């Protein structure tokens, strides 16, 4: 069962990921991205990361992407202009991407075989209890720092998005 699930959701992930890039309308990209995230959440479940899977759904799909969709609707962004002015990106970008793919493929081919394999249920350390325990003991400081980061982000977002400083 595991490989079938993996292949199914990996296929959905990649297809929707490609769709994110290919779609002309931002809202289609956004919804494809939601699909990517949802199927990634399933993959997280297969990897034993229950808490992260749910956090992925709640935070990414449920909050961040809603924000994206919200902004797209608010700006009523249409399909994008096809012509741009950056030839650098086109001339150097595509070859660079191809090289990146090649390099990654090569290094994976040479570096990965000694890794183990994933069977659903092997790893039970990703539940809310374990993540929470690690979060509030070993990683307490980073956790608190992120809360400050979020506070800063909230303040920044409000200041930026205000209509006028009157």
């Amino acid at each position, binding site marked *: 069962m595991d490989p079938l699930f993996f292949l199914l959701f990996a296929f959905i992930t990649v297809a929707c990921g490609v769709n994110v890039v290919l779609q002309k309308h931002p809202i289609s990209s956004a919804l494809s991205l939601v699909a990517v995230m949802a199927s990634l959440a399933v993959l997280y479940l297969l990897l034993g990361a229950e808490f992260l899977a749910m956090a992925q759904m709640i*935070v990414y799909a449920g909050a961040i992407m809603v924000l994206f969709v919200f902004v797209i609707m608010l700006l009523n962004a249409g399909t994008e202009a096809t012509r741009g002015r950056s030839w650098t990106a086109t001339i150097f970008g595509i070859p660079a991407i191809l090289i990146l793919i090649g390099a990654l493929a090569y290094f994976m081919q040479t570096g990965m075989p000694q890794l183990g394999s994933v069977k659903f249920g092997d790893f039970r350390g990703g539940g809310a209890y374990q993540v929470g325990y690690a979060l509030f003991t070993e990683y307490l400081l980073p956790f608190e720092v992120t809360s400050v980061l979020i506070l800063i982000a909230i303040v920044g977002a409000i200041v930026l998005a205000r209509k006028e400083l009157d």
Partner: protein
Amino acid sequence: MDPAQIAGILKQGAVPTSWYLALSAVLFVIGVAGFVLRRNIITVFMCIELMLNAVNLSFIAFAHEHKQVSGHLFAFFVMVVAAAEAAVGLAIILTVFRNRSTLNIDEIDSLKN
């Protein structure tokens, strides 16, 4: 990887970790491609999220590989940072759109020279 090997994996019912990593790499490259090639600033921003997700996947795959919860926490922090980034980034996009009424990043080039 030859077909016999793949058949063996299907029969055994366990997915190699490297498959997850490969998926992560593929997603990452898709994100990079979108970032470089797309012109709509919101789409570009979404491609960044895609890259972050790809990285999260490899974090979690490695967490499984090493049977440690630390990888999950890294992914968790990435999510938090992504949330903060999305909030500020979208606010910036809103401001830019209000001032220049365009979302095409090729037209937003005041920093030139």
